[in-house]
């Protein structure tokens, strides 16, 4: 399975589970290179996002960063998170608005979007994404 096929599989994988994201977070750069350092960002106000991040953190061995909606909704806040991530992979679990802002600011800095998925957990819409910074 090529890389894009794999990502499509992840994206279509049903409920937002920890395992596919963990696999994604560890995915190598296409064609080689080592495993990237991962930063895991979850929206602090969303218990569903925090629960997913918590599951992921165990598998990835990284502590999730709980970022508030004010931080995720501001240019300065997202920029600071991206600075902290350095060059690596950021996996985010947050609401639609925060995810869009995060991705757009990251894109303006040259980051590549590896994937994003839209899911509903109960009545909450969540976006899970991975970007290479």
């Amino acid at each position, binding site marked *: 399975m090529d890389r894009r096929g794999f990502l499509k599989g992840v994206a279509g994988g049903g409920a937002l589970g920890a395992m596919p994201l963990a696999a994604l977070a560890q995915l190598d750069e296409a064609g080689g290179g080592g495993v990237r350092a991962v930063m895991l960002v979850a929206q602090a106000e969303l218990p569903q996002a925090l629960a997913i991040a918590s599951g992921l953190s165990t598998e990835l061995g990284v502590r999730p960063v709980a970022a508030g909606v004010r931080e995720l909704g*501001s*240019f300065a806040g997202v920029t600071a998170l991206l600075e902290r991530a350095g060059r690596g992979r950021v996996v985010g679990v947050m609401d*639609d608005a925060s995810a869009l*802002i995060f991705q*757009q600011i990251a894109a*303006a800095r040259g980051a590549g979007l590896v994937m*994003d*998925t839209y899911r509903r957990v109960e009545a909450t819409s969540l976006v899970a994404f991975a970007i290479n910074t």
Partner: protein
Amino acid sequence: MSSKSKALPKGISAAEFDKVVRELRAIVGDEHVLVDEEKLSAYRKIMMPVPDAQHELSASVTPDGVEQIQRVMKVANKYRVPLYPISTGKNIGYGSAAPVQRGQIVLDLRRMNRIIEVDPELCTALVEPGVTYQQLYDYLQEHKLPLWFSCPAPSAIAGPVGNMVDRGVGYTPYGEHFMFSCGMEVVLANGDVLRTGMGAMENSNTWQVFKWGYGPTLDGMFTQSNYGVVTKMGMWLMPAPPDFRPFCIQYPDEADITKIVEALRPLRIAMVIPNAVVIAHTLWEAPCTPVKRADYFTGPGAIPDEAVKKIQADHDIGAWNVYAGLYGTKETNDANWKIIEAVAAATGGKIVTQEQSKGSQALEYRFDLMKGKPNLGEFGLYNWRGGGGSIWFAPVSQAKGAETLKQMQMAKTILGKYGFDYVGEFIVGWRDMHHVIDLLYDRSDETQMKNAYACYDELLHTFAKEGYGMYRANTAFAEKVAATYGPVKRDVEKRLKKALDPNNIIAPGRCGISL
């Protein structure tokens, strides 16, 4: 080298495309020509109800100056490959950074992000396309210059050149951005560099202060078009007023739009209220408050009026919420404030002042926008339905109450038919109103995708039948929107395109213009 691009420009073979990429890399450097799928993915992200593949790019090239763009044009002409220029690429809801047609190479101008000049006496700026509003704001703050600019809602990440070129609007007295631009530099398809207005004259120092020059004024041709690549733009900045008094007036009923517009129009035309007044519906305010739709309605279809009423009551939001400001001295604002109070009292509106707004996210971001302070508060809209779908439907109306009510009711009926909510606002120019509706839907739901497309299509054609045209449109509907303006205008546009870009290399299809 072998091209990894799967979306080649029309009529170009993989081998030819590889040559194009090689030649572009020789101009801008390897790292500034992208063909790898992952690296292109950020350009590819769209919110429109069409398949991603329809707007897939073949590559991106990121020049750092005019001379490089001229050389890029040569390559594009040689191989007849189309370039799709973007400045910061944040035209979210109108197509974002993705090209209008599949296979185009995105000409990304973000590296051209120099603030070339700010004249604090004449209150002007000259900027490149990659400059963001946030960057300009930071510059003015750092240099302690008491100057404001007008910016659109996604201002912290968008930029003045791209917004002006798409004829966007903002919320200060300088809110009609094209009107307050002054002088452009444009690279034409043949590589010539045109400076409009007084900029055409060597050694002129009036490029940013006098717009017209001599002979035909050409600036408008380079907005909402594909006749050249705008590489510099002059813009007017507003002196920070000694006293700024933003306010909101809330109205309880949807039908109040009629009296609101009738009461405000004279004040706007006479410039008692000098800024672009916004009249926002409950459902525009709710997501930015923030209110969760699911807390009020989880059924299929559009949210019922009763639920909207409940949101109004629970969160102290008007059916319509008028945002405006007074800009002047304390004395002039005191005098004008009495007029505002009288108008609100006579029309049944409730005034919310800046002091009373503390803690309200929806009001704070609006008040910041009215003084040109960039923020991202309006992105809250995307949480209303969730799922990453948004297209702006933006017809123009006269600033007359009956017209606005008619448009609102037409839109609400059509949106409801397809199961979507009316999330709209009116932005008052002087005599017109930009009626902006965010058609929000779940892009991961195939049925909603189809319905959103059909809904926009019906909105467009129903409004056109009534003589209502769009002021701006997303790239998926560019052709259809252009068609509503009739054949003669389109024929002239095509003839201009043939004269200026005979090989059709600059964004063919943008705003419906192509050979």
